[in-house]
């Protein structure tokens, strides 16, 4: 399902590319940083729309959100596995509010900078922050993850909780994160994986086929687990680590699920989206969801697959593989010496 959607998105992108020279390019670009980004620039997501989604989410957001808090908590758990402290930390958009809530002194963070592209979201965070007096020194920036405004070698830790899957140039954004890290700095990210909302994906497709005789992309192409590993190594992170978690959330109805997605700013922001959703189709989706996936107690489950990525900026103290061909002892000899009893 997901790969089908991704392939469709790619196909549409090809079309878009061919047409691009006709469309005036409104984006600023500079000679040095712009070139690298321009090379692989594909526009899948409407970042301006996503920014408006996040403005809305700043108001719709609940005080606590069990799903997001669980993800943030799991992400921050990784800090406890490190013996290192991270005095200056940077948190990219997404559910940074949940990261702040679940921090509870982990990772030895003294200074936390939070960035989002929505002004309302940043103001909301600052408002919540002013209510609490403990915790690290807080700074706030309005900025875009695709154009990270952070100096090279300045941060010990860069986190992103459920934000990176809305970025067009993900490798580019991750490379910028790596550059902003100090040597031996940690990059931690949680993104939604391809299994996410598979029930809703199926219900949407069936309802659209049934009512409209065709489908339009209602959901983003999301990363698969293998993509996450590739992304980390492509961005040049050392000691990459990827793991996956799956959360099932029960809702009373599909409408409640959509409300929750809105509060998390996780609603459709594809460029290729259809701007209209017929009332009929929406209701049919809810009904199909209920009948196909509904549980005995009347609730409906929704799957969220979260991929956690860990990577370090290179440092001489990190373990490295030896150069190819540099071994002086053959594996055969080692086996003769140590492994004879296992044969």
């Amino acid at each position, binding site marked *: 399902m997901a790969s089908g959607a991704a392939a469709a998105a790619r196909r549409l992108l090809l079309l878009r590319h061919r047409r691009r020279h006709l469309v005036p390019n409104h984006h600023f670009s500079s000679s040095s940083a712009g070139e690298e980004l321009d090379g692989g620039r594909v526009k899948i997501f409407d970042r301006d729309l996503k920014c408006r989604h996040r403005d809305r989410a700043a108001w719709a957001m609940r005080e606590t959100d069990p799903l997001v808090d669980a993800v943030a908590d799991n992400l921050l758990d990784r800090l406890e596995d490190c013996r290192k402290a991270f005095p200056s930390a940077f948190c990219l958009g997404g559910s940074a509010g949940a990261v702040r809530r679940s921090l509870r002194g982990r990772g030895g963070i003294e200074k936390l900078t939070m960035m989002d592209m929505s002004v309302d979201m940043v103001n909301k965070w600052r408002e919540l922050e002013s209510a609490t007096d403990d915790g690290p020194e807080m700074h706030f920036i309005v*900025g875009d993850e695709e154009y990270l405004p952070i100096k090279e070698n300045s941060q010990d830790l860069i986190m992103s909780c459920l934000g990176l899957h809305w970025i067009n140039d993900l490798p580019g954004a991750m490379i910028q994160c790596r550059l902003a890290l100090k040597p031996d700095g940690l990059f931690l990210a949680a993104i939604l994986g391809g299994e996410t909302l598979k029930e809703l994906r199926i219900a949407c497709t069936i309802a659209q086929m049934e009512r409209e005789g065709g489908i339009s992309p209602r959901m983003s192409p999301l990363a698969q687990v293998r993509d996450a590993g590739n992304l980390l190594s492509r961005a040049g992170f050392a000691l990459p680590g990827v793991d996956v978690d799956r959360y099932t959330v029960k809702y009373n109805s599909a409408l409640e699920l959509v409300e929750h997605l809105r509060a998390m700013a996780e609603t459709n922001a594809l460029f290729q989206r259809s701007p209209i959703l017929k009332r009929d189709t929406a209701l049919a989706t809810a009904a199909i969801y209920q009948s196909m996936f509904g549980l005995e107690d009347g609730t409906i489950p929704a799957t969220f697959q979260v991929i956690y990525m860990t990577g370090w900026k290179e440092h001489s103290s990190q373990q490295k593989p030896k150069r190819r061909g540099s071994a002086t002892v053959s594996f055969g000899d080692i086996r003769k010496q140590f492994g004879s009893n296992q044969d």
Partner: protein
Amino acid sequence: MMRRTTALLLRHAVGGIPQALADVLVCPLSKKPLRYCEVSGSLVSDAGRMSFPIADGIPCLLPKDGKLLEDHPRESGYETSSRDSSD
């Protein structure tokens, strides 16, 4: 809220932004240092010829919020920058 904002304003030197934050900010496009322009109350990137607003103590470094600086002659920008960086 008020108390905190006042504290922030007292602590910093750079137009409502804490010094510690101003030190790590760069132009999102050119990745070159930014300087604070007191006349316009904004952060100016001399390399990218752009200025970014500061709204209520929060720097807005979205590329789309950046204003291209075309009205000023190029030399004067460099002069201010050298003077600013020295203090």
